[in-house]
């Protein structure tokens, strides 16, 4: 993985020193809250419902064991012994004290990490495929490109005060596991005539106005990545609305001005500025050296036999590796009943130990709020499973209905309009109790606690959006969303449900699916594409369905 240079180290340490001084000035009154707030946000420090929250960047979701152990240490020393992994592949600490935050940032800098640009109207953490560097369907490892963009966008003087935040995602595989078309810029590595380049989409995003990104360039040569992305940002910086934050994202500019107009402007700017950029070859070569594949140890190509629990886990939590003797392991942070995406300090250390012993010191965080061990020898899977089970991390549910994405919601978030976590917990426990999750099969269920859609509810098979209606929590349901290369925004089913009705409503949808599917092989997504919304609406809202479920 990428290692900090002296320049990076010096830059991050300097920012910590500056922030330490800013905190002191806030406390002694030399800075007002109005002056301090943008400074703390630029360093990832939010003020939430119950406490401050520090959001730490995990670039493209990549960590090593030393960094994971340091996150564990930070959580114990300055927080409450756990961390929350987010849909943007970051980690959040929910209980830091203001005076402690500079020390936390110094501790992060000790392992080449920071919280810069995890908030504010700037280019945020570049996200990527959590199977990067390991996936069997990969054309090229997207992480060197993501790192190039990270270096380019970090403290970029022109893009610190954009009209609104800006998110870039990149995948190097044929399957889109990074939800690229739901980002301000989505990059998909493609090969053409033997050359590697990118399909570039712009104007995707979720939130209150969900939009699917549109292809602005079907093939961008690798060498042009930075100048072209800079041209997009430059155009957006000029055109993006600053009078209304709800209309400030680039998706609104693309929608209002039209893709062709935006494309012409970007191409004109690109033509004008391209010559100012040195080629990316040298920088990419240097970065790629840091992302060399590990020296893989050979092993058997079959998954060893084991207990029923082991077999259930291998059925759901493994993905194909590009080597036949290895597998990609998803460590579920979704044991039914737990807070989705949370890991205790002990669990973080257990994962770090496994990464070192069996995983070539590589860890990834997925946007589905799980941890990935990208390279595990199949021969080592029983030992990995045993260690995960001992740490309470062996839930066999990756990709199933209990593998729920949930934002922090009104349990923590100051922006939330309803709770997400208890809804996710109740649904996961219900299907665990009914022993139905494996019978239901692959099903993405995502919960957001407000219209900002951090829980990605728009692109779930079953999406749940928590809102306030007349002073009470109400939950809207969308169906048929898809985060993959087939991306689709879910359709709203109709009126929302009260907090004590939403779990039953989900059960009615799933029961309907089990009755309607043409075989056990037809997934929920496939059944929905075949049947459409109507039969599920009937199951949700008809008196008969409600009475049967009651």
């Amino acid at each position, binding site marked *: 993985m990428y290692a900090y240079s002296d320049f990076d180290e010096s830059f991050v340490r300097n920012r910590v020193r500056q922030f330490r001084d800013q905190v002191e000035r806030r406390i002694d009154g030399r800075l007002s*809250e109005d002056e301090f707030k943008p400074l703390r946000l630029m360093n990832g420090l939010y003020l939430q419902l119950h406490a401050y929250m520090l959001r730490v960047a995990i670039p493209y979701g990549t960590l090593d064991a030393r960094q994971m152990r340091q996150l564990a240490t930070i959580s114990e020393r300055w927080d409450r012994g756990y961390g929350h992994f987010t849909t943007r592949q970051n980690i959040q600490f929910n209980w830091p004290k203001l005076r402690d935050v500079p020390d936390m940032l110094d501790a992060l800098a000790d392992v080449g990490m920071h919280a810069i640009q995890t908030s504010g109207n700037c280019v945020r953490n570049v996200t990527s495929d959590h199977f990067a560097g390991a996936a069997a369907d990969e054309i090229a490892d997207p992480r060197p490109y993501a790192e190039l963009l990270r270096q380019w966008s970090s403290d970029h003087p022109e893009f610190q005060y954009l009209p609104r935040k800006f998110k870039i995602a990149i995948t190097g595989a044929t399957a889109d596991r990074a939800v690229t078309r739901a980002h301000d810029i989505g990059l998909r590595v493609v090969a053409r005539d033997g050359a590697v380049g990118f399909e570039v989409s712009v104007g995707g995003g979720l939130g209150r106005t969900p939009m699917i990104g549109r292809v602005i360039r079907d093939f961008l040569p690798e060498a042009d990545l930075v100048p072209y992305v800079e041209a997009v940002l430059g155009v957006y910086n000029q055109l993006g609305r600053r009078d209304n934050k709800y209309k400030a994202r680039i998706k609104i500019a693309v929608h209002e001005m039209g893709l062709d107009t935006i494309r012409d402007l970007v191409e004109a700017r690109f033509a004008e500025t391209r010559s100012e950029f040195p080629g990316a070859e040298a920088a990419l070569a240097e970065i790629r050296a840091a992302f060399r594949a590990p020296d893989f140890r050979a092993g058997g190509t079959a998954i060893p036999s084991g207990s029923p629990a082991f077999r259930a886990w291998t059925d759901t939590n493994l993905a194909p590796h590009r080597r036949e003797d290895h597998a990609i392991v998803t460590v579920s942070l979704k044991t039914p009943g737990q807070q989705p995406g949370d890991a205790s300090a002990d669990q973080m250390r257990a994962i770090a130990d496994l990464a070192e012993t069996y995983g070539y010191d590589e860890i990834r965080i997925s946007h589905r709020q799980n941890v990935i061990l990208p390279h595990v020898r199949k021969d080592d899977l029983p030992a990995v499973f045993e260690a995960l089970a001992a740490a309470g991390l062996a839930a066999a549910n990756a990709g199933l209905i209990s593998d729920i994405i949930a934002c922090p919601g009104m349990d923590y978030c100051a922006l939330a309009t309803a709770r997400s*976590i208890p809804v996710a917990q109740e649904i996961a426990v219900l299907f665990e109790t009914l022993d139905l999750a494996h019978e239901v099969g692959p099903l993405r269920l995502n919960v957001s606690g407000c219209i900002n859609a951090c829980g990605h509810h728009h692109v779930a098979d079953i999406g749940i959006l928590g809102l306030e209606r007349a002073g009470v929590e109400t939950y809207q349901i969308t169906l048929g969303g898809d985060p993959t290369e087939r991306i689709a925004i879910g359709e709203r089913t109709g009126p929302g449900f009260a907090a004590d009705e939403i779990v039953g409503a989900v059960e009615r949808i799933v029961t309907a699916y089990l009755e309607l599917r043409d075989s056990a092989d037809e997934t929920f997504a496939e059944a929905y594409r075949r049947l459409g919304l109507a039969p599920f609406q009937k199951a949700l809202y008809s008196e008969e369905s409600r009475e049967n479920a009651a």
Partner: protein
Amino acid sequence: MKRRFHPSVVTANDLFEGHPVWRTADGRWSATIREAEVLRDPETAEARLAAAASDAARVVGPYLAEVATAPEGPAPLHFREVFRVRGPAHASDRLDHLPGE
């Protein structure tokens, strides 16, 4: 049409810890809503809010929150405020920063 004033308390977040706090009749900030001063008319509420806003060395973002009144003290009305009083659902996070609740 102007909304009818409802009994309210002044609440904010503690500058140092970030925890919810409520303003008492003697101008202190309490971690317990039961100790908050109940403001029964808009003029007093605005005056107390202005006083709270000048207390930036202790708190962040003061605002008025509507309450129900009872002999044991005020209780939050809106569910958001209920969650601020109660704490998150997470077992290890619940209430331990809210002595007296």
